[in-house]
């Protein structure tokens, strides 16, 4: 815990040292929510959902806000490693008596917290300004969010393994993130995708994560979201050990080649 707090403090101080950036990030978020509200309403009207435009606004808002959290799981580990490589701080950190997976996890906490803060702001605005999701079931949301983040973190570990081995040109984060967003129903409902895409979308964790999340936001009990929850836990149990094995193998190889701290 104290390790995570050290990284949170470090990252906060670094972020706060760029004051204008903090202001722009806060403003950007508010503008983002407004744009989503009006753009989604416009699109819904344009495609003939005039009477149900707020349904689509909720769909898009939840899709984008929660996809941001899930994709943070994908990007946080490789980004933390890459930042440390470029800043030249990876080597001194690796010399501390801490295991690398612990180090990577702790150094990603702040990015996760930032994404959760963004989510909290979007949800607060959605509830208080637009009057959405008053019936949301928080327990269901948490039960979906945890395995959802873990599956993405598992893929993120594979992506971090690529950073350890190849430094740049990681094919995982970009390609997987793009495919997930396309097939997982972030802004386009899976139902309206071409038929041949449906089986593909079912093997993408984001599909189940967003399904479960949207159910939770509409007030569904954990039982009603059981299919999504079970699918996500199943994926977590399969992906996490594989990802840990790949990451460990990458570390061993980098140590053998002496390239661990190269960038």
């Amino acid at each position: 815990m104290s390790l995570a707090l050290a990284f949170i403090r470090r990252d906060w101080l670094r972020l706060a040292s760029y004051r204008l950036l903090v202001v722009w990030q806060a403003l950007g978020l508010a503008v983002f929510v407004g744009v989503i509200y009006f753009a989604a309403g416009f699109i819904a009207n344009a495609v003939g959902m005039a009477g149900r435009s707020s349904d689509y606004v909720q769909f898009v808002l939840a899709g984008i806000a929660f996809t941001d959290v899930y994709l943070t799981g994908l990007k946080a580990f490789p980004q933390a490693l890459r930042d440390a490589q470029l800043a030249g701080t990876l080597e001194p950190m690796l010399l501390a008596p801490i295991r690398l997976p612990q180090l990577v996890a702790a150094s990603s906490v702040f990015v996760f917290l930032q994404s959760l803060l963004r989510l909290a702001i979007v949800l607060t605005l959605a509830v208080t300004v637009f009057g959405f999701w008053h019936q949301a079931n928080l327990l269901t949301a948490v039960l979906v969010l945890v395995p959802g983040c873990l599956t993405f973190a598992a893929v993120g570990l594979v992506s971090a393994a690529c950073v350890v081995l190849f430094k740049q040109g990681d094919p995982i984060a970009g390609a997987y993130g793009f495919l997930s967003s396309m097939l997982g129903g972030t802004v386009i409902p899976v139902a309206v995708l071409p038929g041949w895409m449906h089986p593909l979308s079912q093997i993408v964790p984001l599909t189940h994560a967003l399904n479960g999340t949207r159910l939770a936001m509409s007030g569904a009990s954990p039982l009603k979201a059981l299919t999504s929850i079970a699918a996500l836990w199943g994926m977590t149990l399969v992906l996490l050990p594989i990802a840990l094995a790949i990451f460990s193998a990458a570390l061993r190889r980098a140590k053998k080649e002496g390239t661990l701290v190269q960038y």
Partner: protein
Amino acid sequence: MLKPTRRKLVLSDVDLVVRRGEIFGLLGPNGAGKTTLVKILCGLVAPDSGTARVTGRDVARQSLDVRRRIGVVYADERSFYWRLSVRENLRFYARLYRLPSSSAEARINELLKMFDLQEAADVRMHAFSSGMKQRAAIARGLLHDPEIVFMDEPSRSLDPVGTEDLHRVIRDRVADGHRTVIIATHLMHEAEALCHRLTLINHGKTVLTGTVEEFRSWVDSEIVYRLVVGECDVRAEGLAAIPGMLGVSVDPAGPGAISLELRMSRSVTALPTAIRYLVEHAAEIRSCTKEEVGLDEIFRMVVRGSVPRQITAVTQ
């Protein structure tokens, strides 16, 4: 110890024992394998074969335990968060080393004072000079009071004054008599100024290990003294008869003075007898200088491969 990087052999046949409490130098030309050796000893690079022990612990199998006992000081200035102050940087690393908050603050203040960084403690590090960054790096390396400190080219980006200051800091504050300090450097004067013992590494192999004096005795069995004395009744034959004297040459050294070159064996101390001889013959001794092979000359001999084979065999 074998370490191939992209199929290139970096180190082989490295056999070293460093004694507790000494300042030990890893000296060698660029690319000799010094940094790789340090990284192996710190557990950042895994050797293909062989073993490395630090304070009796295997660096591969007991990596965490080893890392608790070592501190590493880099010449790379980028190893800090420049947007943070040195105090915040040290706080962060203190947490990584699991120092309790209360003792960490006291230790950080102690180190800031020790390395003259108190006044700049809350200034962002991007405003620091190279010398200040280097002192901060040493402070970080000592945060957890390690038994062993590794320093990789500690004076790389420093000017001569900064280098001299750094050497004083290393001698007086880092090496406290109990702590072992291992310095990797290609600077002969640095090794000579700081190290009790050192090893010369070339092409990934240890070539010579010993004190600077031992190095000299291995590559050069003679000591040469050059004296300038006032004109007197000194005969070369008389000096040459002194036990341990290997050769004497006498040359004029300007009006009323002569220059004596006395070549002596290292094993027999002939200088006191020679001085007594000169005094007894009413010679006014104006200067006496010892001329010996410098470490840089030994270094060049090693790099060129002109160190006698039997010497390298003995020292390994």
